[in-house]
Every structure is written in structure tokens, then in C-alpha cells.
């Protein structure tokens, strides 16, 4: 009995871990290509889910069209934010500390802005639930029960992770994005359109966030505050090393499983604090995470 409980906890931990991983992938893309940590990542997830909900229930679009619409809209929001706000900040050479702080503060602002807008839309007052991508009776694997939606989540996460890894390793655009992050000046010198690259990275990341939102929303109650999932994604990314895409997925799964095991073995109260505890322990003991590159001192 107890072992069954543990197996179920591990299995559903892997599923929730994949959701964290998907959000973490969207954070890592931005970090890899612009060095910015996106504190609005959770709100982009939330926006994706709400655009989807609006498309499904208000405009009664089919599910596939809804996914496309949500991804495109959130892509545009992310890219626009980079172009309008972040580009203004990086483009300006003020004072000596032209560092990341203003950029990160701007993403905090974006998060509040999006949350504020969604909260004011009259549609969001009552708590709703997005229908799942794949409905149907749950599946049994031995004694472990999983929803069909869970399998879809795992599949999408793995596909997205593989596609991104291939993209960053083998395509010209992916290599250009990495070059942009490593040394923007040198990248610009060899003809990489740095500004466009940054915008593309934000758009790509936002699109993945929207996808994560649509997959996640059926499992959660939708509120404008569902962006707090971003902290779990941060934890997943930090476990993985913040620069590694496979690391993200491993980190997400580790976190999901650890959270469930803590809930089963220790106390359900401790679930909420697990990700933060994990962040602190990993950052203090092994800041480069499991698969990340060693932290290099910042170039002058």
C-alpha cells in the first residue's frame, strides 16, 4: 500500500515536474540569449491560459485554433515588450552600472502590468477551468493512475526540449542567439542582428510560456495569480543550471518528485516551501546546478 502511494507520488511528480520544466525552458531561453531573468515568466503563462480561455468560451473557437491564437498573441506581447521597454533600456548608455538590474526590474513591472490587466477584464472574476487538451478516462499503468492530459504534458515538454536543444546547437539562428548572449559586441561585429535576436528570444520564450499555460490551466484553478508557478520554474531551472535545456527538464522532474515525496513523507504543509528551500540550497552549495556551465566572473 505504501509503495503504491510512493509510486503514484513519483508518477504525478514527474507530470507536474514537466509543467515546471516547460515554464523553466521559457525562462532559460531568455537567460541564455539576453542574460535577463524574466520575473514576468509566470504572468506570460497566465496570459496564455486566459487568452486560450477567452478564445474557447467567448469566441467558441476550436481547440487547435485556440492554441495557435494564444501562442501568437503571447509571442507578440513578449516580443513587443522587449522591443519597446528592454531595448530602450539597453540602448541607453547611462551611468556606470548599465547592468541587469533595470532590465530585471522592468520584467517585475511587466508581471504586475499583465496581472493588473487580466484582473480588470470582467471575465476573470469567477474562477474557471480550461478544458484539457485530451479528455477521456484516466489510464492505468499497473496500479498507477494518470490522466490523458498528463501524458500530453510529458510528451509536449520532451518535444519542446528536444526541438530547442537542436535549435540552439545546430541552426544558424540558434547559434546566433547564443553568440548574442556570450558577447553582444562581438556578435554585432560579425553581422548578427543583435536587437532582432533579443526580440526573437523573448517572443520564442513567451510562446513556450503560453503553451505551458494552456497545458497547465486544466490542472489548476485559473486565477490572475497563477503566475506564482514561476517560482517553481526558477527552482527547476536552478537545479538544472539555468543555462542547460535538458537540465531544466531534469530539474523540473526532480523538483516535482521531491515535492510530492515531501508531501507524502514529511508533511503537506512543507510542500509550499520546498522549491524555495531547494533554490537556496542549490545556489549556496552548487550555484552552477546539475548541468550548467561553471559560473564565470562577469566580463568587464
Amino acid at each position, binding site marked *: 500500500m505504501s509503495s503504491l502511494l510512493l509510486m503514484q507520488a513519483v508518477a504525478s511528480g514527474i507530470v507536474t515536474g514537466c509543467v515546471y520544466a516547460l515554464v523553466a525552458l521559457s525562462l532559460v531561453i531568455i537567460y541564455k540569449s539576453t542574460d535577463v531573468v524574466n520575473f514576468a515568466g509566470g504572468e506570460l503563462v497566465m496570459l496564455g491560459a486566459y487568452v486560450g480561455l477567452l478564445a474557447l468560451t467567448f469566441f467558441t473557437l476550436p481547440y487547435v485554433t485556440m492554441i495557435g491564437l494564444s501562442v501568437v498573441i503571447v509571442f507578440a506581447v513578449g516580443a513587443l515588450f522587449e522591443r519597446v521597454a528592454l531595448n530602450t533600456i539597453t540602448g541607453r*548608455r547611462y551611468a556606470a552600472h548599465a*547592468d541587469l538590474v533595470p532590465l530585471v526590474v522592468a520584467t517585475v*513591472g511587466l508581471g504586475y502590468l499583465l496581472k493588473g490587466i487580466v484582473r480588470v477584464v470582467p471575465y476573470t472574476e469567477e474562477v474557471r477551468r480550461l478544458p484539457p487538451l485530451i479528455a477521456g478516462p484516466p489510464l492505468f499503468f499497473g496500479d498507477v493512475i494518470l490522466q490523458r492530459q498528463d501524458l500530453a504534458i510529458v510528451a509536449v515538454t520532451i518535444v519542446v526540449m528536444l526541438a530547442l536543444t537542436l535549435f540552439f546547437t545546430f541552426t544558424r539562428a540558434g547559434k546566433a542567439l547564443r553568440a548574442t548572449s556570450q558577447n553582444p559586441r562581438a556578435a554585432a561585429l560579425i553581422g548578427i542582428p543583435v536587437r532582432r535576436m533579443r526580440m526573437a528570444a523573448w517572443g520564442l520564450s513567451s510562446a513556450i510560456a503560453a503553451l505551458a499555460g494552456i497545458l497547465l490551466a486544466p490542472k489548476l484553478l485559473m486565477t490572475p495569480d497563477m503566475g506564482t508557478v514561476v517560482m517553481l520554474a526558477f527552482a527547476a531551472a536552478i537545479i538544472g543550471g539555468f543555462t542547460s535545456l535538458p537540465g531544466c527538464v531534469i530539474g523540473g522532474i526532480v523538483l516535482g518528485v521531491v515535492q510530492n515525496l515531501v508531501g507524502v513523507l514529511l508533511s503537506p504543509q512543507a510542500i509550499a*516551501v520546498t522549491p524555495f528551500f531547494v*533554490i537556496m540550497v542549490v545556489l549556496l552549495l552548487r*550555484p552552477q546546478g546539475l548541468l550548467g556551465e561553471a559560473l564565470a566572473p562577469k566580463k568587464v
Partner: protein
Amino acid sequence: MYGPLARRSLILVAAILAAGFVLPLCVPVYFLYLANVLMMYAVLAIGLDLLLGWSGQFAFAHIAFFGIGIYGTALFDLRLGLPFVIGMPLAAALAGLIGWIIAIPSTRLRTVYLALATYAFAECAQWAFRTFDRITGGPDGLRIRPANVLGYATGTDPAALPVVAAILCLMLLATLYLMRSRLGRHFAAIRDSEHVAAACGIAVKRTKIAGFVLSAIYAGVAGGMYTLYESFVNPDVLGVAQLVLVLTMVVVGGPGSILGVLLGVVLIGLLPEVLRAAPRGLLVWQEFFYGAILVLAVMFMPRGLWGVIEERLRARPTASRRAPSSTSSASLRSEATQP
């Protein structure tokens, strides 16, 4: 110490102190409550600015130290019967001590990692306040007894204001002196360039830790001030929203400038009141406004409102005597950052 304090800073401090004693005589209670809140936020924001604007560290743990200040002061009074004048400094010292423990490992981390580690600490602290309910009262909150400051009972807004104002003035004076001290200069040097500071013989790590600890103490003191005019605290007060509010105050007002931060505290602190007074329930847009203001401020006012005001003042012909030196330093600065 590098020279005496400017007269205008002393006038500002004296004006705040006077306001603390005069306002309770002639202003409705609701405004006194606002004044208390703003003065408390002023200490909180100046403490955050010590880290963010002066020593250039991007840390989010501030709100946790604020919580330690509140719960520390309240519990020292409730459980140990320590009076405010002993309990509050003890709580602030406790915040500083915990800040020191956190600072030692986390000052190794780079900007963003530091932000995440300290943010995680803040969340852990909020969780602790919520979970250890036998000590803190848990999610139901904790009732705060009216403090007894050397025989003077606070607890209502009019009674608390003079004490709150006096504490703010003490903290302001301390900050003004700190900015002029060796340590203050070291903070600024590290903010501008860690490498150059280290090359000049400044102990970078130790100075960063000092900044962290001082900032935690400020937050602890702000927590003590909170217990003077509030009668109740629960862990929800110590969430991210509060932190973002203080961050907005610093960023909008002017990081690295005391007057700027005070300006930010007043403007952002009064925003909900303005929205409440405005027609058609603009209050629901509050979150949106905070977000928009934050984004616009970092976009167009890198040195906050105070930076804009300073530039305007400098551009006036009366300041022509100082103009050449300032423009030359500005051009030097822009050359230094250009490739």
C-alpha cells in the same frame, strides 16, 4: 567623515520631526495613519536603497527582515515583556544577525542569482511566519500590544506619530552620516565598479556583507515602527506585493539618493489614496498602475524622478559655475562605458 552635513538635509530632518509632533494636533486621524505608514515605508525604502542604489546589490530578502522586525518586536513584548526601547533594537539586531548569516554565502552570487537566492529566503521566511503558529500565531496573525516607549503609550495613530517621526529622523541622520563615511564611499565605489574598487584596496566582499547587514537592520527598525501604529500583523503583509511596492518607491524616486527615495515613498505611497478618490473605482487598476509606473520609470528615468529634477536644476543658468565640471564628468562617464 567627509565634511559636515549640508544645511538643507538638517532642515529636512528637523521639518519631519516637527511634523511628527505638530500634525497630531491639527489633522484628522486618517491622515495621521497615512503619515505613519509613509514614515515607516521611508525607513524600509532607504534600507533597500542602501543595497540597491548604494552598494549595487540586487537583493530581495528585505521583506523577510521587515517581518523579523515586526514579529521580533511584538514577540519580545508579548512573551518576554521587554519594553519597546529594548525590544525594537533587539529585533533589529536579530534582523541584522540573520542578514549577516544570509549575506556570507549569498554575496558570492552574481546579480541575478543573488536576487533569486534572497527572494527564496524571503518566501521561506514568510512560510515560517505562517507555519510555526505556536510562536507567531500562524495565518490568523498576531495581535500587537500598544507599545510603551519610556512611559509613553502608543498604539493609536496620533500617539504613535511623534515616536515614528523621531525614529525616522534618527535613521535619516544615521544614513546621511553613513553616506559621508568611509563605508558609504566604499559602497558607491563597489556599485560603480567592483574591479576598480578591489584594485583601490577596498575589501569588496566585506563591504558587501556590511551593506547587506545594514540594510537588514533598517528593515528591522521599520518592522519595529510598524508595531507602534498597527495592532495586528499577519504573514500576508510580508509577501512579494509588499516588496514590489518598496522596490517601486526606490526605483521611481531615485536609487542612490535619500531625497529621491523620500519623494518616491510619498508619491507611490499615496497612489492608492489618489486612485481611491478618483471616480469609477480606479482602485482595481492599482496593480496595473504599479506595473506600468515601474516599467516606464526604468525606461525613461534611469536615476528616478530625483535624477530628472537634478538635471533640470543643473540646466538652469544660475548653476553655470558648476556646469563645466559636471558636463566634463558626464562625458568622461559616457566614454568609460562606451566600447
